[in-house]
């Protein structure tokens, strides 16, 4: 999905829209003047808002809506692969793991991949592979899942909390620049809800300061930038296959590695069995016979982070459908966002033309109360009453957790930032619009109509 919205709040996407779409009604709403639309058959205007006792706009049957929202979209084929694992016809449960690793390498065009129990254990293994002296610091966004940060603890590494860019919700390189210090050795951009971080900028910055680039691609299966898959830009990357993720195995994870040394070290922490496996001459599973880690056969280094084979079966099946599933979700989002982001006060995260994003969990929409003329809470309530699946967007800022202010858990105390304005801005401004996981043109139209109706009446709500 290519977008060229350097600034989503600017007129450019609106201009595009006005050129291409029958936008008479939209234009009227954009003007913010409900009255001028009175004479025309505009959706919603003549009706009372549902929140004020009118009838809801979204009338698509609830049962069918649930099917559209449902995630994961497992069906008959997933049941079949699971049944095949259980019926005993597969003599070695664990063969599926090597198969998945091979397919993941191929799909992402990356030389090495190792399956792990979940994304968190892939992170743990990745940080172990870094092999940095204790006390080294690693830049992470505060706006991420806990394990991007807590896993550092195991190896005496200390996080530096970086803000996010409020227009993308991804790591803010400018803030990283401000927080650069000589202890920092690595940086971990996270591709938030499927939107690639601007990896060219991250890589330039990292090069300047000789930092190792790692990626938390837990949200970004199939996303790419400049034709290169997310998770393959950094020296190492991780994915999560947890139930909510774009490629769900209920629980599961994967690490991607550019070089054998990292791959082997990441493997030895939690895969005692792989240490003794034979590495095929040209393949990339197992540990090479001459590897320095070979001697840890029988012990590994302290954890067992093997993916559940039933998860692998699900993931292999879902991988076949990943691109098509991403396409469906994207096309539904585009249809909705292209219209609702014309409304005053609504915009979406900036996705560059050279980025192919995916959507994970929700459709993040920024809400500018001043421009909209109503509060976020009011709008959300009114939209919910119209039958729109959405909520106020909330996501934890990790730096606020007690764990990071208690020095006893860390090699040295963390310089916890007082505020990260980018994180606060997103949390105070964003709404979370439900993703449609199936083609649902009628529902798309009703969602758009509901937004336009609420906007047309928003003076009454103010």
């Amino acid at each position: 999905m290519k977008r060229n919205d350097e600034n989503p709040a600017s007129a450019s996407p609106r201009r595009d829209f006005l050129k291409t779409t029958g936008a008479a009604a939209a234009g009227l709403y954009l003007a913010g003047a409900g009255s001028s639309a009175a004479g025309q058959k505009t959706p919603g205007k003549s009706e009372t808002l549902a929140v004020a006792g009118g009838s809801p706009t979204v009338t698509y049957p609830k049962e069918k809506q649930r099917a559209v929202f449902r995630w994961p979209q497992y069906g008959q084929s997933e049941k079949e692969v699971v049944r095949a694992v259980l019926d005993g016809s597969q003599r070695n449960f664990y063969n599926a793991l090597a198969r998945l690793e091979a397919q993941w390498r191929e799909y992402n065009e990356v030389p090495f991949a190792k399956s792990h129990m979940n994304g968190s254990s892939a992170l743990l293994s990745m940080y172990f592979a870094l092999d940095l002296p204790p006390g080294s610091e690693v830049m992470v966004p505060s706006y991420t899942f806990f394990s991007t940060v807590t896993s550092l603890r195991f190896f005496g590494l200390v996080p530096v909390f970086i803000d996010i860019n409020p227009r993308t919700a991804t790591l803010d390189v400018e803030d990283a620049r401000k927080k650069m210090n000589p202890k920092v050795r690595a940086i971990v951009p996270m591709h938030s809800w499927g939107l690639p971080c601007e990896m060219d900028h991250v890589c330039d910055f990292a090069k300047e300061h000789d930092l190792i680039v790692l990626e938390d691609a837990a949200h970004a299966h199939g996303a790419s930038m400049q034709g290169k898959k997310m998770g393959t830009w950094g020296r190492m990357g991780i994915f999560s296959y947890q139930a909510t993720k774009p490629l769900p195995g209920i629980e599961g994870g994967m690490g991607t590695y550019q070089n054998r040394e990292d791959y082997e070290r990441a493997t030895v922490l939690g895969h005692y069995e792989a240490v003794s496996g034979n590495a095929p001459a040209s393949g990339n599973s197992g540990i090479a016979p001459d590897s320095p880690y070979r001697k840890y056969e029988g012990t590994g280094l302290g954890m067992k982070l093997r993916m559940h084979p039933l998860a692998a079966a699900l993931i292999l099946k879902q991988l076949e459908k990943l691109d098509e599933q991403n396409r469906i979700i994207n096309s539904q989002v585009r249809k909705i966002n292209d219209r609702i982001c014309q409304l005053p006060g609504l915009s979406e995260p900036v996705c560059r033309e050279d980025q192919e994003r995916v959507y994970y969990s929700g459709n993040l929409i920024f809400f500018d109360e001043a421009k909209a003329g109503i509060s976020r809470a009011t709008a959300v309530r009114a939209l919910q009453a119209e039958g729109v699946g959405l909520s106020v967007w909330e996501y934890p800022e990790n730096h606020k957790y007690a764990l990071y202010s208690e020095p006893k858990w860390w090699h040295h105390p963390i310089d916890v930032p007082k505020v990260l304005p980018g994180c606060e801005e997103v949390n105070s401004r964003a709404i979370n619009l439900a993703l449609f996981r199936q083609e649902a043109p009628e529902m798309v139209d009703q969602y758009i109509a509901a937004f336009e109706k609420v906007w047309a009446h928003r003076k009454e709500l103010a």
Partner: protein
Amino acid sequence: MRQSDSRRNFLKTAGATAAGLYAAGAGAKATAQNTKASAPVIKESLAINGGPKTVTVPFGDAAQWPLYGPEEEKAVLEVVRRPGYDPNFRLERDWQEYYKVPYVRAYCNGTGALNTMFFALNLPPGSEIMVPSYTFFATIVPMRLFGLVPVFVDINPRTLCFDLEDAKRRLTKNTKAIMPVHWIGLPADIDQIADWAEEKGLILLEDACHVHGARLKGKLMGTWGEMAAFSFQATKPLPAIEGGMANYKQREHFERGSTFGHYDLPVKFPADSKYRKYYGCGLGTKLRMHPMAAALARVQLSGLDKRNEMITKQIRGLNDRLAHLPGLYEQGNGRTDVDRIYYAWNMLFIDPKEAGMSREKCVEALRAEGVNATAHSYTLQHKLALYREPEWWHHPPVIPELPGSDKANATGISLPCFSKEVPELIDQYVKAFEKVWAHRDQLV
């Protein structure tokens, strides 16, 4: 199912005529006085010397594991239909009901459970924990992540379990805890170990990864120690392909351990918990069991005792009929207050002097007869590179001599653990053993 004690018991209770004869080592005499059925076995020469193979029943799925059926399939497909984490909590409820311990927590695997136990101990770095070397890495290696150091203890070569007398010799001033492993279903002498631990002020832990449903003095293994770990890996007595569980007696251990592996659960702790504030970030990583594994484990738990009983019946059916062979022993401690289970292998030991043949010759001859026997040796942890490299440890672990462990590895013969009723196979196994023993003078 009580384990029949020893050869002595057997001779009292079983029809041991033939046994006595073979034990006397006089094949010829045996032939003359023996029943019609077993006579040809003795006449025929060993398969290894060109005679006919004794075991002709195809092995098939006699030791198939896990045993999953329609109920397991239904439970797992329900998770595919409606993915969510409820199965984990339901499993914990059923598990707690079965074990009746104050706290239980499901984890991704047994190693994960052990990780949380070491973290829960909250011991000063450099503290030491007594463990057998004859075990899977997971009993030991995770402790290094918490600055803990193993003290390797020997096993009794006939029980494959913790040797308390050896532990007494190896006690150090840094020793803070002790963790016996109940090896392949046989309870360690945990009552005696518990008494000694109490006397010395050591925390008792259990690696109960092989021993689901076994008891000592009527008390379930995994409920003796302050904490215990279970594995649900595919080969285990309660298989969920991958999965694990920890039992905790104390709230502190439970909350601290849970917080290490579950960022999302501290919110459920009581308001006065000191771990509640780590809700959202946890203190370690994410060690959640796969809910499909939990669904499997739950169904398997409901059939655990029955399966254990059935397997025990097969093993007893075989071993009781081998007990008369001189120089052949089975894994056991001779205690009558033990309800053991069997898992992975049926472990026998040979005393080459008493048997009059070497283990290698014996195994070779048995295999030629069609018995799936293996000269069994298990990796001893203390001999591996990791423990000799100080960089991984708070201080280097002592690398001891462990003669009991070595002896177990020099004398063990493993047979398959039959997982279904196989009376004919057992008959033929018995005949094959008797034949090999009858001709053992040819194997010198």
